[in-house]
């Protein structure tokens, strides 16, 4: 498969939000203004771009059936797949912590603009979803997995900045009181899902 194809697929066709409804909690909570949505979106791209390749290595060198062959002939029959969920979560939270510390040390400006979003991402299911999709789809090289991760991240970013812009716009709308806030956001998400359906079924 072509790298560009994987990337485009991740952005539009297999969009994390509208095709799989992953990462909805931060998507709904942090989309009030475009500026904050922008920050969170960039952080998601960043973290997905780091954790998926790391998980890819983990998956292929440790967890997969027979992946431990490099330790010796005795380990060929070992299958650690049962641990993959726990391992992925551990890697995601460890990586997020690490990234946070590194950014804080070397780029305080970026750190303060990302602020609370980095720790928030540790519990964003789009990140774990990225790792699990990578496992399920069995990308053949680490570069393909990274391309998929960046594509999913960009798709998520696009979705959250689009809904943030819409929410800024409908601040002047006369929404029924019962629907104000999260209610109307759910409806907008549904309508955006309909609009994103134009990409479903495209084969590239």
């Amino acid at each position: 498969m072509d790298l560009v194809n994987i990337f485009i697929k991740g952005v539009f066709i297999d969009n994390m939000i509208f095709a799989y409804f992953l990462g909805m909690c931060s998507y709904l909570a942090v989309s009030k203004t475009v500026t904050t949505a922008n920050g969170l979106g960039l952080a998601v791209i960043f973290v997905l771009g780091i954790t998926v390749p790391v998980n890819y290595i983990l998956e292929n060198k440790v967890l997969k059936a027979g992946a431990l062959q490099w330790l010796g002939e005795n380990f060929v029959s070992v299958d650690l797949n049962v641990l993959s969920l726990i391992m992925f979560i551990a890697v995601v939270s460890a990586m997020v912590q690490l990234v946070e510390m590194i950014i804080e040390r070397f780029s305080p400006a970026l750190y303060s603009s990302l602020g609370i979003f980095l720790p928030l991402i540790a519990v964003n299911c789009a990140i774990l979803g990225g790792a699990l999709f990578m496992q399920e789809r069995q990308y053949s090289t680490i570069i393909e997995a990274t391309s998929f991760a960046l594509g999913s991240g960009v798709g998520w970013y696009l979705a959250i900045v689009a809904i943030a812009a819409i929410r800024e716009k409908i601040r002047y709308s006369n929404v029924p009181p019962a629907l104000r806030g999260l209610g109307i956001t759910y409806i907008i998400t549904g309508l955006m899902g309909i609009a994103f359906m134009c990409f479903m079924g495209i084969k590239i």
Partner: protein
Amino acid sequence: MKLMRNILDRIKPHFEENGTLHKLYPAYDAFETFLFVPNHTTSSGTHIKDSVDLKRTMVIVIIALIPCLIFGMWNTGYQYFSQLTPDMNGYKDSYTLFDSFIYGFWKFIPLIIVSYAVGLAVEFAFAVNRKHQVNEGYLVSGMLIPLTMPIDVPLWMLALSVIFAVVVGKEVFGGTGMNILNPALTARAFIFFAYPTKMSGDKVWVSSAESIDGITGETALGQLASMVDINPTSQNIINKFGQFSSDGVYSLYNSFMGFVPGSVGETSVIAILIGAAILIFTGIGSVRIIFSMFIGGLLMSYIFNIFAPESNLFMSLNPFHQLCIGSFMFGMVFMATDPVSAAQTNTGKVVYGFLCGVLSILIRVFNPAYPEGVMVAILFMNVMAPLIDHYVIEANINRRKKRLQMKLLKS
């Protein structure tokens, strides 16, 4: 006119604060302002002085739709009669222009009635409950929705999609001018995804096609989509290629004039162009959106032309022909220019229109599931329009800040 004014003035007290029919005041108000320009003035906020208010704007769009409407009615009858074999009721050669029009008229009127009745009933219910005025916006949506439907769409499906569009697409946001998606497109998308069998294929575009055997009522796009990935030397495909040459069913001339099957309003490019002229001349449709969308579509078709493999007629079709088939033109003139859901800034409009055009052709060619993807593409751009606006405004602010800084530095 004087008589109407007098009648309205006489019954007005019943609808006012203490009148017996106060609950129905929105209905009275809608009717009165429909007939007469209201005489109340803005009490706060921005004042705009213009003789054309929202209702007048909507009526002009309706006028611009009339050529499409009349041609669509005639074409419905024309497609029906030209599919009948001569020995069936003795038609085929003996039907006249007028016969076609009358047939289409009786087919199409129920759609309009259902669309308006259901849509306005929902609007009235919301207006009475939420105590706002009845929104004028539905005058146009109610006409656009049946024009984008296949002629034989079941009336209950139409009613359902109208309710969905008005309630979820518009009223939950507070009514006309506050929605994010074009209600007509929302209705079309809803019915398209909910009942795909009634909205695509070769049996829905010609009236009563299901009851006539051996009919070929597919739209040009349906034909093209069915040709992808098939051996280009087979006789079947060669026949289909022929349909797009200058003497075929889907020739450029036929597509331009509109003598092809399709949903009611979309077939005739010439009728749509008349409507476009009216919209542009009165300043109601945005010239920026129309032209940039046209250029976007054209450019994308040219790019496909360059990269097209020989067997893929869909990609190698002449760009102007590509734009004339399907609902590209109709979407460009009447859907993308919706002032509410399109981008609001001038630069934003150009970007929005251009992306609409590019995306429409992209989806049409690449997505075999939705060859009629123009409407969904515009819907997608509706979603993205606020974001485009946001960045245009942001860029504007930054430019001015920079200018101010330069000025401060100089002084």
